[in-house]
Structures are given as C-alpha cells and as structure tokens.
C-alpha cells in the first residue's frame, strides 16, 4: 500500500467544481494571444531607445538578447505611443486573466508524487521560469508605472532579462501544451457553456492532469459566471486606466498612475520629472542660458536668438515607457537646422545633454535619421505659450515616435557627430 500523501497533495483537497482542462484552456487561449503582444511591444520599446547609440542602452549587459535591434523609426509619429500604450494597458488588463489562469492550475503545483520521471522533473523545473517569470514581469511592470520600487536593482535590467527568462519558459509551455489545449477546447462548446447557469453546471470529468476535481463541491457559480467575472474585471481595469493613453478619456483614468490634471491651461499635460526634482533653478534657465551646439563648428545661442530662427509647428505625441501619452502642439527650431549651424550637414548622431545632470535620462543620443526628420524640433513653445519649467523651459527636444525620455528637457548642449 502506498502511504497517504501529505495534506495539500491529496487530490480531494481541491474542491472547486469549475476547475478543469477546458476552463484552463479558455483562460490559456486568451493569454496565448495576449502575451505575444506584450513580448513584441516590449522588444519594440527596447529597440525604440536606439540602444546601439551612445549611452542609450538601459541594459548594456544584453549580449545576444539585442539581436533584433534596428535603427528606430520616426514614422508614423504615433507608433511608440500605440505600441507602448498597448504594452502597459494590455499588461494591466491581462492581470486578472493571469491570476485566474494560475488559480485554475494550482492543483498541479501539488501533484503527487512530485517527481515521476526525469522528463517530468525537468518540465516542472521549467515552470519556475513560466510562473515566476509571469508574476515577476507583471508585477515589476505594474510597480514601475506606479513609481513603487521595493528593490535596489534597475527596473530596466529586471524587466528585460526577466522577460527573456519568462519567454523561454512560456515557449516550452506552449510547445508542450498546445495539443492538450486544443483537445480541451474541443471537449466542450463555449457557446453552450455561455448558456449554462449555475444549477446545470457539472464538473469536468477527472483526468490524468489532475485539474478537474475528484471530489467537487456543489457549484456556487457557473463557468459562464466565472468567465464573466474575469472578463468584467479586465474590462474594469481597462476602463479605469485607458484614459492615461487616450486624450479624450483623460477623466476616466481613475486608477491610472497618470492622466491627472494640472489645473487646465496650455501646459496641462503629464510631467515626467519636475524642474524641482531635477534641480533646475530659475537662475540657470534665465537670460544667462545658452544652447551650445558642437560639431565641426561650435556655436552658442541665446533663447531670443533661437526664437529668431525659422520656427516650425507640429502636433506630435509625447509617449512614456510607462504607457501614458498625449498629443500636443510643439513649436521650435528644426534639429536639422541646428545641425547645419554646427557645420554638420548629415550628422550620424547627436548627443543631447540636459541641465539635469543627475537624472537617469539627463542625456540621450538621437540618430542621424531622427535628426533629419523635418518634424524633429528643439521646441521652445507648446500650445502657443512658452514651455513651462516642468516641461523643459527654456528648450526641449521633441522627436516623432521617440520614447518620452529621449525628448530631453532643459537642453544645454547638443554635440553632432559626423563621419
């Protein structure tokens, strides 16, 4: 006689009549569509920093994990806004689905005996990458957009390398489980389930994977009800956060970290680092401020001199890696014009430095391609008024489709590199 397994490992412990391969597969299908979108938009965001230029790379230890990098584009100007907004909002929206999926498979964690063969042991070990990776990626992402850092490591390092560790676990899981997912989905009709109330809900039959209960309790909610709760939760999260990425819905972003009002007026849009936090005092941005252009020629310009150059106005988005974004009307001098003044007709890149010496993004390198876009500006004004101190007065960069932190504020020097 085999000894009785310890308490949580007894199959009779798991009583929910709703757990079973079908339910797990329905939740899994949603993640199977959603997670690849998160992965692709995440990798796109990394590429958008142009990590091969200057000190742009936030994860310089990347090794071959940056094999897909390309010079970041400027067209369409909303591409980063949509891509990164999708990454963050979809991540938030999928959180209830992830939690429901984990709930549905928890009996597997307590499968007995814990080790049946080498293959089984290896497969279970790979679940650390899958489950640890999923929870780690979702919650580092969520905490980052909420400015909560209960750790000392760099968020960029953690989220980037964590993503790769998760991705390999996810890939193995998808390869091994897709046949079972397909079979389970075929075992019941979704349409029929959505018409079945709690009184008619019967448990899925026990199966070797141990997801369905061997001793189910009476159902208190139908599968339709459970899927409705998960879908409703996702929809609630969407409704409460989408407004930080869509200008017309600003007021609905009740729980989004961003999307709040600064009291109206032309500079009422999100600030990513205040002048106070960056240590930008009025005496360094006043009459004594000069923009230094370096290239084959060195040039200094005061703000009135910049204003006397040809001014251009474009409606361009500013989109943060944290998911919020907004479109505003920027006016200023073309970066290409400034490059010419520094004697760099076709620069390879420009290294932009801010008065903010201590910020993680007080400097950024833009590509020659970004400089050459006629909409790339050193903005002096926004929505018809001078930039406010928090938005980068006296001058800030605005480049179409660039991640927000590359639109350097309080610019003091631009060094153009030529071949």
């Amino acid at each position: 006689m085999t000894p009785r397994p310890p308490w949580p490992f007894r199959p009779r412990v798991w009583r929910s009549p709703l757990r079973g391969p079908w339910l797990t597969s329905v939740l899994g299908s949603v993640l199977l569509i959603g997670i690849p979108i998160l992965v692709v938009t995440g990798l796109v965001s990394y590429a958008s920093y142009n990590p091969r230029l200057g000190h742009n790379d936030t994860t310089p230890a990347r090794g071959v994990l940056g094999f897909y990098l390309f010079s970041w584009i400027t067209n369409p100007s909303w591409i980063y806004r949509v891509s990164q907004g999708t990454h963050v909002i979809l991540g938030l929206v999928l959180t209830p689905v992830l939690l429901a999926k984990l709930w549905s498979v928890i009996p597997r964690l307590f499968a007995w005996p814990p080790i049946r063969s080498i293959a089984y042991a290896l497969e279970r070990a790979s679940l650390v990458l899958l489950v640890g990776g999923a929870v780690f990626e979702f919650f580092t992402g969520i905490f980052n957009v909420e400015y909560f850092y209960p750790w000392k490591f760099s968020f960029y390092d953690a989220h980037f390398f964590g993503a790769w560790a998760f991705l390999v676990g996810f890939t193995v899981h998808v390869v091994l489980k897709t046949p079972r997912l397909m079979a389970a989905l075929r075992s019941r009709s979704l349409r029929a389930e959505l018409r079945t109330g709690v009184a008619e809900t019967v448990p899925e039959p026990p199966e070797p994977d141990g997801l369905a209960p061997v001793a189910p309790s009476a159902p208190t909610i139908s599968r339709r009800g459970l899927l409705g709760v998960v879908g409703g939760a996702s929809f609630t999260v969407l409704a409460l956060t989408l407004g930080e990425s869509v200008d017309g819905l600003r007021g609905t972003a009740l729980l989004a970290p961003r999307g709040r009002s600064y009291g109206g007026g032309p500079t009422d849009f999100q600030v990513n680092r205040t002048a106070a936090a960056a240590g930008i005092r009025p005496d360094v941005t006043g009459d004594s401020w000069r923009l230094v252009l370096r290239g084959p020629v060195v040039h200094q310009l005061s703000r009135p001199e910049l204003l006397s150059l040809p001014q251009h106005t474009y409606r361009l988005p500013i989109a943060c890696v944290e998911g919020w974004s907004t479109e505003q009307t920027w006016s200023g001098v073309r970066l290409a014009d400034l490059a010419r003044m520094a004697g760099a007709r076709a620069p390879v890149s420009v290294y932009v430095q801010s008065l903010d010496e201590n910020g993680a993004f007080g400097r950024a390198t833009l590509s020659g391609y970004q400089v050459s876009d006629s909409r790339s500006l050193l903005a002096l004004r926004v929505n018809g008024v001078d930039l406010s101190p928090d938005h980068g007065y006296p001058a800030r960069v605005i480049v179409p489709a660039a991640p927000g932190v590359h639109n350097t504020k309080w610019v003091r020097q631009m060094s153009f590199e030529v071949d």
Partner: protein
Amino acid sequence: MERLRRAYGARTAHLLLLAGCFAFAGYVVDRVLQVPYAWMIGVYFVAAAVLHDFVLFPFDALADRLLRRIRLPSAHGAAPPLVNHIRIPALLSGLLFLMFFPLVLGLGERTYRSATGLGTGPYLGRWLLLTAGFFAASLLLYACRLVAARRRGSGKMEARSG
C-alpha cells in the same frame, strides 16, 4: 534510443526542448550576473512564483470558504443565494487593491511626486469609492432579485391556496 526514452520518461524531442530551454535560461542568468543587485533579481523572480502560490492563493481560498458559510435567513426559503453578490464586488475591489496598492497607500509617494509634481492622495479615496460602488451595485441587484423571488414565491402560494 528506446532505452533512453524509457529512462528519461518522454520522447527525445522533449529532452531536446527542455535542454534548449535551460541552456538559454542559463545564458540569461549569465547576463543578469553582469548587472548590479543580480542576486536580488533572482530572489524576486523565485519569490514571485512562491508569493502567489503560497500567500495570495491560500488567503483567497480561505476567505472564499468562510464566505460560503454565510446563509441569510429567509422567510420563504426561496431567497436567491447571496454569496456571489458579496464575493464578486469583494474580488473586484481586492484585485484593484492588489494592482494599485502602491498608489492607494502612497508607497511610492516620493518618487511619484518628483516625477509628476503631484501627490498620490486622491487614489485612496478613489479606490474606496469604487469599492463602495461595486458593493452598492451588487447589493442593489440582489435586492431586485430578492423582490422578484418573493413575488414569484407569493404568486405560487396564492395559486396553491386558490
């Protein structure tokens, strides 16, 4: 080959897949070791799996088991079950707390303020109001169902006595 398969417990392709998986994961670990506080990333990664399975889940399951013991006394014995009208708003509220507690409790107040120039003050009130709204809507719906059930109940009784 067959002996390998029996000793291993699955097809050779399974072994190759898992070997590739761990080789790649090993490479990622090697990269992570180059960054500051790499050990802490590892600890958080493993803790992430454990935290859900051994803390969040048991808490959730226990709360739910307690909730299911609630039975409302009903004059007609035909009252619709209350349980989902409590656990669904509780679940929604709990989920929002789980996802947004740093804002609700102001845990990132300093970094939030230096980034945005604003405080996290409003989030606690918003979350409480949303919670109140979820419960109010759910209990209102329950009241409607209760009234409907009683009407049906008394209708039946009249039919029987008539």
